[in-house]
């Protein structure tokens, strides 16, 4: 056989054939399209239909965006210039930019304060979000709420200072006594903080805010996307610890604590957020005298926090329930008491499981902050629905304004969701 072959072959290549590029249909864009878009007849049909759909959407929106006007002073002027051709009237965004971001009453010359607070916020939450950063940064995070409060509301620096001292003293007390006796440490710290706040609050002289370094800005003057950010950030950061406490309380063996937590969670989950907001804005003003009302912003923060805490509690409870019983028993067998077992063994694992759920609640909560527009607070949506659409210049501009609001919210919410996915990958240890 081999002989025959040797004789009958007229030509044998002495060198290897140079590598030729793969066939056109097996490489590059063509291959990708063949595999992903046209792999079968139904898929091809779907692809073509989708392309047509995308084209028909873009055909109308692209000229609208590209032709958009940015510098006119009213909708009528926009229409005059466009003269029947399609085009957006983005001028409303440029003219009312400050109102959309800061609300219409925040003093213009003080805009730098929320801006600084925003930049500091990025620094403050960085160590919370990214564990690789030096832990010393957490000190700044702890100080941030007081700094931000002072920057945004202004007024005397004594107010936030007293609040800070209260926390520091309470923390020191807890450090000293809480190690051995959690209950003594915790309740003692709470009582001490209350004493510091009431004594310190009484010591702040009347009218201290009048000539403060930063002029005081009342809560009613806050607005725009700034208000959404503030509400969202405050409520998320307050409701996570509260939600964890509620979830632990619900699992407690003590009937009273368990009862309170169950009633609270089920009550709040059974009531729509908007009714809670109405209670905050309308009903509470009946209870308090007109000149001594609790600040509306604070009332709303409390209501939204309670609301989302109940949801986070249920998410965390799911995480706790998902832990194998052996983990609890392991903690017990090590001789750890309840706070230690929770802090060192149970919660780290349970919270890891709960991350997607907590992020879900956080994103929902952030978007729910737009509900405050129905109780006449001028958040981003409130600004659009109220003052801007009610002005004679801009009445009738809908797509541009609501599209802008949607884009702002999308950026933030998508960011949160990307972060949570990154965090899940990072915490995934792989069993």
């Amino acid at each position, binding site marked *: 056989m081999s002989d025959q072959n040797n004789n009958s072959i007229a030509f044998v290549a002495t060198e290897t054939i140079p590598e030729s590029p793969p066939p056109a249909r097996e490489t590059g864009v063509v291959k990708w399209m063949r595999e992903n878009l046209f792999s079968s007849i139904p898929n091809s049909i779907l692809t073509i239909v989708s392309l047509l759909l995308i084209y028909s959407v873009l055909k109308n929106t692209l000229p609208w965006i590209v032709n958009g006007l940015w510098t006119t002073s009213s909708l009528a002027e926009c229409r005059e210039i466009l003269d029947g051709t399609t085009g957006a009237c983005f001028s409303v965004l440029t003219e009312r930019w400050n109102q959309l971001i800061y609300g219409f009453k925040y003093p213009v010359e003080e805009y730098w304060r929320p801006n600084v607070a925003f930049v500091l916020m990025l620094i403050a939450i960085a160590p919370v979000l990214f564990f690789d950063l030096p832990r010393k940064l957490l000190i700044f995070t702890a100080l941030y709420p007081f700094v931000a409060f002072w920057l945004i509301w202004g007024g005397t620096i004594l107010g936030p200072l007293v609040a800070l001292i209260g926390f520091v003293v309470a923390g020191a007390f807890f450090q000293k006594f809480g190690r051995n006796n959690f209950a003594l440490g915790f309740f003692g710290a709470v009582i001490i903080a209350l004493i510091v706040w009431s004594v310190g609050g009484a010591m702040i002289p009347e009218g201290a805010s009048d000539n403060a370094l930063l002029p005081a800005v009342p809560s009613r003057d806050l607005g725009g996307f700034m208000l959404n950010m503030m509400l969202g950030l405050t409520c998320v950061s307050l409701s996570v610890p509260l939600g964890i406490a509620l979830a632990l309380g619900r699992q407690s063996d003590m009937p009273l604590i368990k009862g309170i937590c169950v009633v609270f969670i089920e009550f709040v989950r059974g009531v729509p957020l908007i009714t809670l907001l109405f209670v905050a804005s309308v009903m509470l003003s009946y209870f308090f005298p007109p000149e001594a009302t609790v600040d509306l912003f604070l009332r709303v923060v409390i209501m939204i926090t309670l609301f989302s805490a109940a949801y986070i509690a249920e998410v965390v409870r799911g995480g706790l329930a998902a832990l194998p019983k052996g983990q609890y028993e392991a903690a017990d067998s090590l001789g750890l008491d309840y706070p230690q077992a929770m802090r060192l063994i149970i919660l780290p694992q349970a919270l890891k499981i709960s991350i997607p759920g907590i992020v879900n609640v956080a994103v929902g909560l952030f978007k729910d902050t737009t509900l405050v527009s129905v109780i006449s607070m001028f958040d981003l949506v409130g600004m659009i629905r109220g003052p801007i659409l009610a*002005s004679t210049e801009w009445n009738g501009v809908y797509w541009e304004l609501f599209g802008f609001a949607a884009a702002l919210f999308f950026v933030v919410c998508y960011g949160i969701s990307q972060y949570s996915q990154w965090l899940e990958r990072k915490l995934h240890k792989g069993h």
Partner: protein
Amino acid sequence: MKKSVVFGALTVAGLAAGAAAAGTLDDVKARGKLNCGVTTGLVGFAAPDANGEWMGFDVGVCRAVAAAVLGDPKAVEFVPTTGKTRFTALASGEIDMLARNTTWTFSRDVDLKFTFVGVNYYDGQGFMVPKELGVSSAKELDGATVCIQTGTTTELNLADFFRSNNISYEPVPIETNAEAQQQYLAGACDVYTTDASGLAATRATFEDPSAHVLLPEIISKEPLGPLVRHGDDNWGDVVRWSLNALITAEELGVTSANIGEMAAGTNNPEINRLLGTEGNLGEMLGLSADWGKNAIMAGGNYGELFEGNIGESTPIGLARGLNAQWTDGGLIYSPPFR
């Protein structure tokens, strides 16, 4: 602990509310600011401009009262209220007066315990249709689809009107005015019905206002005016006569332009009484003698406020109609300053 705080606050609230109800006028003077409830935004009636300054027809009333009481039209804290929060804000004392397109009705006056001090705009429910529909009267609307805001008196008025005229319609329920504009323009309904001033304002924002007509029928009475709480008649008088001062000023030809020379004294004793150069009307109200002058200078007389905010020279373009002075065949009428 929390409970005792709440109960304590309740007690204090009860006491303070009793004390506060004694003299809103004194409260306002002591505070140096008038808390005036307005809408969160209604074209021409109340809305902040690009600089955050509140402008509008209802806002003008607030400023006039502030000028009359405090001498400064800028001494107003505008408290934006929605249709849902406005009455509680007034009843709880959060605001001293409400100037927010509120229809004067029996139940609001009697049952909710408010005092309507007058009417600054006579409105009524009207219809808007596209011109190409070729309709010239609301009675020709048999079988039409009608965009209507749910939960409002307009909904009930509409049902009454169609039933009494024995014609049928199909309602398209909508939530807000903005939604209504979109639905109407998109052709989801043949007719849009709401207050005539709202229709005019809405039409003014259309790309081609001339393609839409307002039908002549007005099917309801919507007298809009400022209101205060029951129980403080002295404060009610202050607001009532501040509004009347604006109306009387127009009737007597006192404008923000000529008020300077008129305040020096005129031959017309009523003008002199209005502007405080004669008589002691201000003292009777517990205000300074030039309260009427201040109120008028805040934004002009009634006619000037109307023309500047919602009149025919503005994009809203409302005709005076019912809101002309009684001497011109309208309903705007002030009792005499005597």
